């Protein structure tokens, strides 16, 4: 449902995040600061084997999530010497497969939200078969990226909320009013990024508030405040977008043509996001959807189909009485 029906951010300057993953050191200070500030419960203790990521994904009990990706490809002009060490085939693909296989075993529980329940069982480690790079372990880079609610311009979660619990704040952010939410769960599958989630023992949904309470006090969000390298940058969205565009140019200039922005384009499927990212690989590698679309974009068309279908149902019944009368 495009611009007409969807409310636009109003009021003050729109605030947001630019997360520059190229300077993330994976310290997870953002995860912890968020939990401390917002008193989010822990998400369960479970070794996931996803490099150093034991949180898995965003959820009701994880509003910031740091992804760790070990890849057999180089980082710009970095020389990490692995190519010249005595090595056999890479392990990245096969360890990832072990994790994925572990997920597959637990259909249902894992997928959800209680990342803590995921417990991929041990799998034989790959032998040099088709699963590994044919040339041996040729390259290596370790990407880290901190994920968060995107505070979409056209936020599906907000659109579909039947209670008006989800609102757009004066900062252009999307916030759940926990006293309104009745836990209908509609926003959960509506979010094209898989962000918002229901907390089982509480019944309501939770996600990043962009630290609304701190912002109203003129404070930057806890995660950004804690980030030692300024990988998480908070500020007026316009400024952030300009800065980010310059940053991409800068990286392209130093041998990182793969640097790209994600969510910075106001013409994308969700009208651009309030929290956008600089990535060094395709979005799906980080667990992001490559081309997300606000689910309500197609809603007018759906309503038309529903109306037509309803008419069809009525017509069919009518016809049934006409034809079925004899039988």
């Amino acid at each position, binding site marked *: 449902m495009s611009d007409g029906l969807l409310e636009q951010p109003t009021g003050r300057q729109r605030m947001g995040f630019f997360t520059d993953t190229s300077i993330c050191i994976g310290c997870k200070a953002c995860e912890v600061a968020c939990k401390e500030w917002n008193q989010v419960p822990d998400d369960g203790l479970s070794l996931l084997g996803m490099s150093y990521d034991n949180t898995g994904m965003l959820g009701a009990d994880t509003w910031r999530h740091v992804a760790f990706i070990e890849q057999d490809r180089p980082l710009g002009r970095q020389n990490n010497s692995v190519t010249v060490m005595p090595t*056999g085939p890479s392990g990245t693909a096969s360890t990832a497969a072990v994790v994925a296989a572990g997920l597959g075993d637990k259909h249902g529980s894992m997928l959800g939200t209680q990342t803590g329940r995921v417990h991929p069982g*041990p799998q034989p480690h790959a032998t040099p078969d088709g699963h590994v790079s044919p040339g041996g372990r040729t390259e290596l880079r370790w990407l880290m990226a901190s994920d968060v609610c995107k505070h979409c311009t056209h936020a599906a979660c907000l659109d579909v909320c039947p209670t008006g619990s989800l609102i757009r704040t004066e900062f252009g952010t999307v916030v759940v009013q926990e006293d309104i939410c009745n836990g209908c769960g509609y926003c959960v599958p509506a979010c094209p990024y898989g962000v918002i989630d229901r907390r089982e023992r509480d019944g309501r949904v939770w996600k990043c508030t962009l630290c609304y309470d701190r912002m109203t006090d003129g404070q930057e969000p806890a995660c950004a405040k804690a980030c030692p390298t300024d990988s998480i940058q908070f500020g007026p969205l316009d400024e952030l977008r300009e800065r980010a565009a310059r940053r991409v140019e800068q990286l392209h200039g130093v041998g990182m043509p793969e640097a790209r922005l994600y969510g910075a384009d106001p013409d994308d499927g969700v009208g651009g996001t309030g929290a956008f990212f600089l990535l060094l690989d395709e979005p799906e590698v980080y667990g992001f959807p490559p081309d997300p679309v606000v689910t309500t974009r197609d809603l007018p068309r759906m309503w038309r189909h529903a109306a037509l279908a309803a008419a069809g149902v009525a017509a069919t019944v009518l016809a049934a009485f006409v034809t079925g009368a004899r039988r």
Partner: protein
Amino acid sequence: MVQGSNMAECHPVGFQWVMAAKARGATLIHVDPRLTRTGALADLHVPLRAGTDIALLGGLINYVLCNGLEFREYVVAYTNAATIIGEQFRDTEDLDGLFSGWQDDKAGYATDSWQYEGTSVASSAGKRERGTRARHDGQGRSHERQATGRGHEHGSHGAALSDLSNIRRDETLRHPRCVFQLLKRHYSRYTPEMVARVCGIPVDVFLQLARMVTDNSTRDRTTAWAYAVGWTQHTVGVQYIRAASVLQLLLGNIGRPGGGILALRGHASIQGSTDIPTLYDLLPGYLPMPHPDAHGSLDEYVADDSADTGYWGNMRAYTVSLLKAYWGEAATADNDYCFDYLPRITGDHSTYQTVKAQLDGSCKGYFLNGENPAVGSANAKAQRLGMANLDWLVVRDFALIESATWWRDGPEVESGELRPETVGTEVFFLPAAAHTEKDGSFTNTQRMLQWHHAAVDPPGDARSDLWFWFHLGRRIRAKLAGSTAERDRPILDLTWDYPTSGEHAEPSAEAVLREINGRAADGTCLSSYQQLTDDGATACGCWIYCGAYADGVNQAARRKPHTEQNWVAPEWGWAWPANRRLLYNRASADPEGRPWSERKAYVWWDEGKGRWTGHDVPDFQPTKRPDHRPPPGARREDALSGIDPFIMQADGKGWLYVPAGLSDGPVPTHYEPQESPVPNLLYGQQHNPARQTSRRTVDPYQPSGDEPGSGVFPYALTTYRLTEHHTAGGMSRWLPYLSELQPEMFCEVSPELAREAGLEHLGWATVVTAREAIEARVLVTDRMVPVRVHDRIVHQVGVPYHWGGNGLTTGDSANELTHLSLDPNVHIQETKALSCDVRPGRRPRGADRIALVEEYRRRAGITAETGTAPRTAASPGGTA
């Protein structure tokens, strides 16, 4: 250059400045066996075999010397490169890996033959010998005091040197016995090819590294080296840092902005706890602990330990002021300022020595005040068995850490080696307040004091450590009150009068800082240690901290944003000494006092004003001209010339060669770790000959190199930290937000090792050494690489050491695997480089665990003697 530290993971907040430097164009290099979060962000990551950094640094030194890349002017003027060494000295080149002075019977060195020609030197850094002055002939009982283990008096601050004018120098650096030529010979074998064979660093990577470092070390550019415990926790730990010092001095990277060797210190205020030490052999401000025989009087003590030249020449003023701070009115000139009250050092009472004393039954009681040795200290079993042999144990901590509960649920209870009913130790657990619950200061890595204010009251019975020690002292004094016994005077005469406040009578931490800062006779706060006198008029709890409370203001509490002051930010906290942010900064200017280059201007001579000036507080007498040359016989700092930047050294020079003060040699030399899968390729001497070992059954060592049985433990092992946890876990394993981030003990292995040892990603592995067997989940990762060393491929196993049996996340402790072979200078354990075996699956339970380890010991033929031979070099060397 980050080497021997995983800075991004262990110092993430400090790492932001590395990132800031990168934003300004800096190149980041990380040398580490593993690709870590630091390496992931580096321009160049250099994997190497753990325990071989001296070979690499020696390779770099050799590269510099062979290619004439040293900063010649700096080296000639500011270091002891030109100094001639005495004729008796023999190098490792001549003695198969030993230096002259080796004494088989004492398993250590007589260091006399290492001295400068024409003069005799005693170091104030590290080992110091008594009666230096009395032994001008150079022959002495240099070993007699080693037993006291007076290890690191004066930190790295200097040496006593009797007469500067006797030192012989050859400023052309061509004299065959000058330090420069000696270095050239010593490191000539550390070729790129040798580096490759010892460290496993391919030649072209080494050359790239060497070029990057040397290209960036010029008049216009400086390179900084950062290290932490990846360097220190070795049987040659001190020499690792010495090797970096040699290289950095050759490159002119000391005392200049953007240069230096940065020790990334550990626990918050671990720097503070060496300045005002929790160490057994030091008094505040690196004053040595007096010796029972030699130091009957203050005069003897000062005469023995102070230097005639350099700032250590004022040691008497520092000592008298300290005694006045301790004993106030009671300390008078007549009673030697109560010098007699000071405890005397009677031997090596370092932490591991104390454990041995516990095992022997001579140490009866133990305070654990913020320490968890049952998990955090090497050979955790020895730690626990030691504690099991105590009469009493007091643990002050936040949670019931393993060191408080080993007697009922430790691994020895599981295996039946200990039974709770028969453990005789009475264990007291007293809850402690956290730093957020009390006022105080941290002295951090950069010698900077920062004040913290209590944010909340401690819960329940938890009390600050200051409260505990103050009131314990108060009660003891109350019990002794009225005593006329002489031995009680030191306690009764103490100034023990801190103001208290609140319900629990919490002592004022600011009053303590004020006392440390020092006061003049009229009670006003001093502002500089130069004001200290030796006549009892001043009192000062730690001379180097003098000024931290200048003008009666808590300077450590200053928090002016960097945007509101100059870039050195002198008004953020307070750094000792004298709020100086960069030590030895005279070296940032050339001998004439001009900045080496305009883009590296830091401190320089202002001819107009007739004084040193710059961005920082000059680390030099402010009006001493660059062309000043001292008259003969000058004393203390006045003995130093205008081109002697290293003012704490008696000769004012940076020491490429250390004539005294180290137990294991004047020049860093590569030795293999106590346990190594390969032989030492450089010398017949396998290990550091002076390392400390024990012959206890609780601490057996494995065969190394080509010794029979070494193949039983074929893999290299290293231990380390994760960002998500803190040390022995007391501050992280009880916190859900941290525990969930690293929820299980694991080990990291390469895909190659996984295949070889049959390990599965996320499966279990059992890691075995001669001490113990532990289990860990397996992470197979490309970040671990095997290295090609010597004639073989060595696989490395990485093990974080945070886990123990208590808390939210539990697991076996890495320190079950480690041993108690120590560096001889500072008695630090070798937890960074060991060898081990790895097998798939979980470890056996109960007594079977012990049986498995015994089986390994049997297979490797381990006896009490294994790995303890000090000398393996063919030649014993002369005791010149």
